[in-house]
């Protein structure tokens, strides 16, 4: 096996989930790919050390999340995602609208709070894994998740209520 064949295998395995996570963190597909690319390039340069870690992907994720929050601070606009998939029976647009409401509300949260929710509820990381990715405590993850969900609830429910009244 060539020296970095294992890194190639690593990229092939983790590229898609990392890009999807990055997209949810940034709300921008181009930035998402740049973010993963940057984190993987850094990982590649240090692969001889990172590959010996128990969880190299956790290293990439941490680099990615840290960079994501920094990039977000410098950005002024974000892409609004369009959800064009799997509309269920009944009103085919209502669930899509609801998801857009949720994602739009998510993007109003502070970067680290948003990252906690994405890592917990999309990447399915445990609280301790999320804490490791963000470089914070498990207690902080719990409180950020709780406050994030509360803020989402506060934003989603009035919007849904309005939509129902219109229909």
């Amino acid at each position, binding site marked *: 096996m060539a020296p970095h064949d294992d890194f190639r295998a690593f990229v092939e395995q983790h590229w898609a989930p990392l890009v999807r996570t990055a997209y949810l963190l940034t709300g921008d597909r181009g930035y998402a790919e740049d973010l993963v690319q940057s984190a993987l390039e850094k990982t590649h340069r240090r692969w001889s050390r990172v590959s010996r870690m128990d969880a190299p992907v956790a290293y990439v994720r941490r680099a990615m999340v840290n960079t994501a929050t920094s990039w977000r601070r410098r950005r002024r606009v974000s892409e609004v995602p369009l959800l064009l998939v799997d509309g269920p029976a009944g009103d085919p647009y209502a669930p899509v609208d609801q998801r857009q409401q949720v994602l739009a509300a998510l993007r109003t949260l502070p970067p680290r709070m948003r990252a906690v929710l994405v890592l917990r509820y999309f990447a399915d990381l445990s609280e301790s894994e999320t804490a490791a990715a963000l*470089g914070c405590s498990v207690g902080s993850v719990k409180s950020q998740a709780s406050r994030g969900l509360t803020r989402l609830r506060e934003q989603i429910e009035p919007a849904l209520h309005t939509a129902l009244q219109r229909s």
Partner: protein
Amino acid sequence: MNTETTLRDALAAGARTVDVTGDPWAGFARRERTHRRRRRARLAGVAAVLALAGGVQAGVLPLPAWTPGIPVAGLPGPLTDAPTRGNLAGDKAFLAGMRQAVTDVVDPGEVWRVIDRGAITFPYAADVAGRRLVLASVPLRYGFLDDRALVWYEGEPGAAPAGMRESGRSDGGEPVVTYHQGSAEEPGVLVVVAPPDSTVAVSTGFRYTAAGRVEHSAPTSYPNGLVERATQPAPMDPGTTVTVRRDGEVIYDGGAGYGWSNSSGAMPTEPTEATLTAALAGRSFDREILRRWVTQAFGDARLAAAGVGVKVRWTGTVDGQPAALFTLHPAGGAVLAYALHGTADAYRQDLRLLLPGAGAETRPIAWRLRAEGKDDPTSRVYVVAPPGTSRLTLSASGPPVELTPDATGAAVTTLDPDTAASVTAYGGDGSVLGSTPVTQLENDMGGIPGDDLNTRVVP
């Protein structure tokens, strides 16, 4: 549908809109080439030297500080612009000298150049507890890539900048940095540098309770985000934890790291021959491998080997390599279980688990495995039954699965890596001998075992 479910649904749907089809590696490599070409094109008009861009990326040719770089992780963090703290904060001559003394950072195969010495900041500089310490936030560049690192320099008290040497570094974005050095014979020092508007709590020392938890010593609180503390000589890592709060939020909660030395060459974590003989209780197993693994376990548990019982619960093979499950019995009544496989020099620690002392002997113990040589979780689970087991089961979401131990006493089964489960051993009369959760794989084994729910069995 509650908010959590709604959020999961929305995130999953949002993620599915991202097209990630195609060959990831080809895409990664192509983007990397494009990335470099674009940067080269942008810079070509202002620096003819970039015709040798390969040499630039290889760190051979320095780029001027004003050329744009590609930021990677480790961007400026809250310490970068923090005021200098410590009793050398006002020593402008020394800090000016340090600014020139900061050296390039050498990683294996790459050299990160200091790109702008004027942009170096010093979050901390002091003569403290018998040494001179400086923490520098250093902007670095490797080819087109920009990074920032927090670098510790140490020297003798009163040392000139030229006499300071690098003693450790971390990413420049870290909000909290620690320096912790100790010795068996000499006093040590703990320095924690956190944002000035934060509060630091330090707890030194802990014990494993009979109930199967980690009980830390009462913490001492420090205002203004700074701890400078001399520490007593200690035979080994005393288990220091640091918690930093800022704006009511915990921004760091973890160990302080520890560099320890002694002049006698003694290793308090190494078990005696008598301990190993008693641990094996007649089993046949490579003693050198067991010595290394038990030494590793004592170090991981921050325990000195003296006076701590060791018992080998199981020996066998994992992926064709020697494997063992053994327990440590420190004073106080708790039990720590460790599973490892490999050789004396190259091994993987598969499990570390703190158990309540009562009933530990009759608990079945299970651990998940990663792919050999990789970090990928697998569905494989090893389960070791206690003596006297007549029935062994694994319970996850469905009905209990009956397990059949092999001749070594271990059963190998499969379980989804994310699925919570427990294993239960029954005696000949059908009574439960013991039941133990199957903990998740750890991503970071740096902390004290039992300090989180992934490494203990009681809430």
